[in-house]
């Protein structure tokens, strides 16, 4: 049982480490010219992929802190995107058991729908509060890229880091822990 708990915390640390790595790569001053293409939002894709597979690796508090730090470091309006992502992960958490049966394409399309929802709500709230926003089309491109990169991140998480859905054999261990 102790082994399970330490494994759980190791995976949580791995999640935080991956987030720090992504932020680190974003902040590297390699090219100070404006980018021609926006890059995908890897943090959101990573968080969703992990929440749908192992919700216990990404508890609400960690997701909230991580996204808030990302908001602060990446010059976004602090708190708004973090709140939307936390709500979205909570929705996915509750929808995760149902997604086991609908296959990867079903999962992908619902993740795409949630990401689009976040995008629309974010833009809507910012425009209601008349905050200066980035141009429309580049952000749409970013959304599409984020959706497109999701399968890749799922692949890496599953095969590289062993973040898989709980099989019947593992369920006993987790049940016993609780």
């Amino acid at each position, binding site marked *: 049982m102790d082994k399970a708990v330490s494994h759980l915390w190791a995976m949580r640390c791995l999640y935080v480490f991956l987030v720090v790595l992504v932020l680190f790569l974003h902040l590297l001053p390699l090219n100070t010219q404006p980018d021609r293409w926006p890059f995908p939002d890897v943090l959101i894709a990573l968080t969703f992929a992990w929440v749908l597979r192992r919700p216990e690796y990404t508890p609400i508090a960690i997701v*909230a802190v991580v996204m808030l730090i990302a908001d602060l470091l990446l010059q976004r309006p602090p708190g708004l995107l973090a709140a939307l992502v936390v709500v979205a992960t909570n929705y996915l958490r509750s929808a995760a058991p149902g997604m086991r049966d609908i296959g990867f394409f079903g999962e992908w399309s619902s993740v795409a729908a949630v990401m689009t929802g976040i995008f629309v709500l974010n833009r809507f709230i910012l425009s209601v509060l008349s905050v200066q926003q980035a141009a429309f089309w580049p952000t749409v491109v970013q959304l599409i890229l984020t959706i497109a990169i999701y399968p890749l991140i799922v692949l890496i998480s599953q095969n590289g880091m062993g973040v898989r859905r709980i099989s019947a054999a593992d369920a006993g261990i987790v049940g016993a822990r609780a």
Partner: protein
Amino acid sequence: MAKDRSQRDEYTTPLRRLLLGIVVLCLLGIFLVWRIDSPRVERFRAQVVDAVVPSLEWAMVPVTATVNLVRDFQSYQRLSEQNRELRSELRRMRAWKEAALQLEQENARLLDLNNVRLDPRLTYITGVVMADSGSPFRQSVLLNVGRRDGIVDGWAAMDGIGLVGRISGVGADTARVILMTDASSAIPASIQPSGQTALIKGDNTAVPLVEFLENRELVRPGDRVITSGDGGVFPAGLLIGQITADPGGRLRVRLSADFERLEFLRVLRYQSAPAIRDSGDIVGPLRPEASLTPDEAADG
């Protein structure tokens, strides 16, 4: 086991909902406070950046250096071609150098005659670029000098040649420079030789737009753009770049500073920069109601 799980959910679900509610309320609260009192939250952001980014520097510096080394190595492949270009450029530069030396001597003589003293207030602090904005929609860099080195919000930052941006957000050891290419940057400029004034407005591309130009006919591609010093934002006469026209016919500025690789920036000490303490009021007469948002008004 199914029963066991449902029993567990009975206890955990309300708790989790409560936690979720608190967390989301906190985050939205931060966002609203930021919207209402943005300078204070931005100061907090500067402090967070100040605490986080320098602690990543030990890893950032070698990685950046390695990538740049690889890039330099790639450029060796074009070495002979570059060499030829440089030679021809050098020949042209020799002619210019000669002209500059003559002008310098003449200038020195004239200054001497007039007993002119150059503005002693324009000294600078040099900083190294530590990090960039990290977002595709924001153009800014983080310098390794901050309040401890006497940096103040609003000062101009240049590379060796041209204007790069202005300081916005100062931490104890770091300062953020909003680049001229950022969408929130607008800098009053004058275009030489016609003397027309305009606003150089960034739009997330490498070449900012020229806006609020009075007479377009007087401005040609190739004209020099320098800061006008209007509004006391920047000292007058800093080089910005040259006018170009984009395929749509709009005037833009090709920046003189080398934005491809910003490494060392000079921050000009400039005393008349106004301090920004509150989240700006609407500029101009109170009625009729101006359609500017506070952000735009604060930007001037």
